């Protein structure tokens, strides 16, 4: 029965004929290594740079390829004092409920209503700002034409891939069309060691010479940020950017990003974020709504946030850095499932800024509800992780009193997540009140004293209207006029977000570092929609 399996070597790993991938190290007997029980960072002195570095946590060695201090990592979901705060709040709510249920509910509803109310006006403020004072950096074609290719530096492109080899040809085409001298491109396909199929297919493809395959050693956590950290350790470029495998960036995006950095007199700007949208926006209703949401986020909210120098949660791709800055930031947190959001906040807390510039990257909008739910619940979980990580030491936000980042952070990250939980609750109360006014009405009415009632009603009626309208403005600003009529369906989309939020909360508690993979490539073969 000892059937000999054919094998071939790829880098340091061995791919078996049945596609199992075995690394020689796996075959070795595990040596007993003394691992610290305390959470602490470690450095692998046998490797260059940050390669092999990581964190010991609860007696487990996690290789993150980063020197990010564990205090700034989501490796621990809740810190001790956060657990105490949550416990105290729970005790207060339960105790208050037992002592006086009505008063307790009034306080909770008042708090939620005020938060919701503030969020409405904060978003309105951001949108007005985005119209009044667009701080989006504009790079003109004339400036691009003036660039001499000979003087351009090497640009590294990170492309983390996991079980999605089908989109590699599309990515290769997109990158090969980029307006940047090819001899100055360092494109890294970051493949996972335990993904032999992608490795095999990537090897089989006739990749351009400026592409290289880097295989991220197997180990936990298995996340995109960890792969990117590995890539960062091997980056050759003076500048670096992340693109997802399904991305199609504007042809001149690298040059624009380069000019953004060159033009900035302010050395504090260390990240340039291109705007994201979808090439398959019209594939189905879900992609249309998703696209409207992105238009609102990238074309209005983010530019508004930039105008007030607020912390900007980065988009997952198309964020450009000087490589040295990225190393100074210690790369990404591999335990945070929205490492982009976390990095954006970290940039602001460290006194630096992100800028949005006039370039787009087109992505694939997930077109299946289940896939969307996985992606969205991961994003929301990541936002929760980010909130918890950065609220461990809230005073770190208070370095600049002119820009109260602590408040904008609450609204942008905390409030955004919380509103997903509040929304269905408020709707339910309203529906119950009007549909069962005779029976449930008298129970609900005392929970809304006059002032709270006005705030809640305003939030419900104008708030919901305004949010719907914001989506329309987003579509209009992006000239996606045909999507505007679909915006009336956005309340259904919000409901889906709320479902995803509950799933995210459950995962945050039980599987905090689990990376729910978004499957890409559903648009392939449906080019007529693109």
């Amino acid at each position, binding site marked *: 029965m000892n059937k000999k399996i054919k094998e071939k070597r790829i880098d340091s790993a061995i791919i078996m004929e049945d596609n199992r991938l075995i690394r020689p190290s796996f075959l070795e007997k595990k040596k007993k290594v003394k691992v610290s029980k305390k959470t602490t960072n470690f450095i692998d002195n046998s490797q260059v740079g940050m390669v092999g570095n990581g964190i010991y946590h609860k007696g487990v060695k996690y290789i993150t390829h980063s020197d990010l201090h564990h205090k700034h990592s989501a490796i621990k979901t809740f810190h001790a004092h956060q657990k105490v705060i949550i416990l105290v709040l729970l005790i207060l709510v339960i105790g208050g409920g037992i002592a006086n249920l009505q008063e307790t509910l009034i306080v909770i509803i008042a708090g939620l209503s005020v938060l919701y109310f503030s969020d409405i006006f904060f978003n309105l403020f951001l949108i007005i700002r985005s119209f009044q004072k667009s701080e989006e950096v504009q790079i003109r074609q004339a400036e691009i034409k003036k660039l001499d290719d000979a003087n351009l530096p090497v640009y590294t492109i990170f492309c983390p891939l996991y079980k999605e080899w089908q989109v590699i040809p599309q990515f290769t085409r997109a990158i090969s069309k980029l307006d940047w001298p090819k001899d100055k491109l360092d494109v890294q396909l970051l493949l996972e060691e335990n993904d032999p199929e992608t490795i095999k297919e990537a090897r089989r493809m006739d990749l351009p010479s400026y592409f290289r395959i880097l295989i991220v050693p197997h180990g936990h956590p298995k996340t995109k940020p960890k792969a990117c950290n590995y890539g960062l350790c091997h980056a050759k470029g003076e500048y670096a950017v992340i693109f997802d495998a399904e991305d199609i960036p504007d042809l001149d995006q690298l040059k624009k990003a380069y000019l953004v950095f060159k033009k900035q007199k302010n050395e504090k700007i260390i990240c340039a974020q291109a705007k994201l949208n979808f090439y398959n926006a019209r594939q189905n209703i879900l992609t249309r709504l998703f696209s409207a949401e992105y238009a609102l986020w990238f074309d209005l909210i983010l530019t508004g946030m930039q105008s007030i120098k607020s912390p900007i949660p980065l988009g997952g791709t198309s964020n450009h850095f000087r490589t040295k800055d990225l190393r100074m930031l210690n790369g990404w947190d591999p335990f945070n499932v929205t490492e982009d959001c976390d990095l954006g906040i970290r940039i602001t807390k460290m006194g630096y800024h992100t800028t949005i510039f006039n370039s787009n990257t087109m992505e694939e909008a997930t077109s299946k509800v289940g896939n969307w739910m996985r992606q969205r619940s991961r994003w929301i979980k990541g936002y929760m992780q980010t909130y918890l990580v950065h609220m461990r030491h809230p005073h770190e936000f208070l370095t600049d009193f002119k820009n109260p980042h602590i408040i904008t952070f609450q609204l942008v990250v905390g409030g955004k997540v919380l509103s997903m939980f509040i929304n269905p609750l408020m709707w339910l109360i309203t529906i119950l009140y009007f549909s069962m006014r005779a029976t449930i009405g008298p129970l609900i009415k005392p929970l809304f004293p006059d002032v709270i009632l006005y705030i809640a009603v305003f939030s419900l009626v104008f708030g919901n209207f305004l949010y719907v309208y914001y989506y*329309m403005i987003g*579509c209009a600003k992006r000239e996606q006029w*045909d999507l505007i009529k679909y915006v009336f369906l956005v309340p259904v989309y919000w409901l889906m977000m709320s479902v995803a939020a509950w799933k995210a909360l459950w995962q945050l508690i039980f599987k905090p570092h689990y990376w729910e993979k978004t499957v890409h490539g559903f648009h392939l073969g449906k080019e007529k929609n693109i």
Partner: protein
Amino acid sequence: MDKIKQFFSDHDILILTLVASAFSIGSFLYYYHAGLITAYGDSRGHLDIARRVVDSLTPGVAQLGGYWLPLLHILMLPTIWNNFMWQSGLSGSIPSMVAFVLTVVFMYKLVFYIAKDKFSAVIAASVIMLNANLLYMQVVPMTESLFVCTITIFMYFFYKWFQEKNISDLILAAFFLILSSLNRYEGWGLVIASSVLLVLYWAQNKFSKKIEGVIIMFSTLSFLGIFMWLLWGAVIFHDPLEFMHNALSAGNQTSIVDANWTGVNNIGKATMVNVYAIIHTSGGLLLGLCVLGFIIFFIRKKKHFLKSENLILLLLIVPMLFDILTVYTGKVPIEVPELSKISFPGNYFNIRYALYSLPFIAIFSSIISKKRIVQVVIFSFILINYSLLGFCKNSNIVVLTGAGISLKDGREQAYEGAVDWFKHNYDGGLVLASTGSNDGLMLETGIDQKFFITEGTYKYWDESLKDPSEYATWVIFSNNNPRDAVNKNVNKKTLFENFEIVEKYNNLLIMKKIGTN
């Protein structure tokens, strides 16, 4: 000289704002000292509605009511709690005055945008600023000044959107339409007409996706005011059309007062009533200039006149068309001496509505020519026109004459003595009275609104009509006034069993609960 010119050119908006403010404040001081700020019966009603939101037996936003649109009342809320601001009318004058200044400024900006000529813009701003009737209406707590303001600003942004296609202009245009529609029902006509114009524009652009999106975006916002008002009626009064069915609605009141209004079921007369009203409020010479300007505009655009970009300015005539329709259907009458056959409430009744055409007149009378000599002649004509209208003679300001007439009607004569008597003899307790006919008395006595049982006080009102002695110590009503809801609905048997008449002014009875002296 050049430096002075340059200074005026660079600071034109600031200078215009200061001049318009001076006119506004000067006018206010004049009418305040003349005691005419709350001369209009309706102005007292507006003040009391806003006051009841914060000062009522049952305070709250529901007191905004269901027949008069709420914008003015909402704008009064920050100051109406103060007794002086309420009783002097200043609480409502402030938003009206700010609106007046904004109208002047935006009219200037609009005409400058259209004509690209500052002198034309100055002419247009002057047409607004020098109109004596508007100068009076902008100091009173009523909706006219606000409406003229919101439609002017709407037109500025809407016109700009047609030229530049900036989304922010489209949104602002729709936003000011919301304000119009939450201020005057004429605004509803404008909301519908502007959406229709966009549909026409869509058709003229081969039903492009872009214009389709624009229509949805614009209409979603501009119809919000109308939708909210219908929703308000449905939630608060269980009737989305409460504003039509309310006993105090204009339609119901006109049917009570007189069925022989001028222009009812006669479209020609209904139109002429409005034309005469314009002549009385803005002057015949100015109307002539406007007609001339319109003809010249038509000739200039002859080939493309029907293009939406050119038709847009005609939207400003929609409020007048709306008023022709309401006169024709008998919902809201306007009376002018040339056509009126009735004596009560008299000539010039509701003539102030003609001021809604003022922005239209200002635009077309100012864009006749860019030749300086012609512009000087036009400007001189405007000055002559307004001098003939008599902006400095009280007796010739027709909108004030309208208010004066209402002062002389039966109710007002009753108030003159009743207010004084009640002020001195009120010794506490709740007062049952109808807002529809006693708003002036409630305002002028200075007694807190929380002591009045009125239509918006829910169970207090309902139960007091059945048995006034349940809560009230006082009952005030006009025993021959069909608009007086107490007179109409109270259980007279229990009223006269438990209350005695303590004072009587014409038909106004002041009654007090027996045994409370």
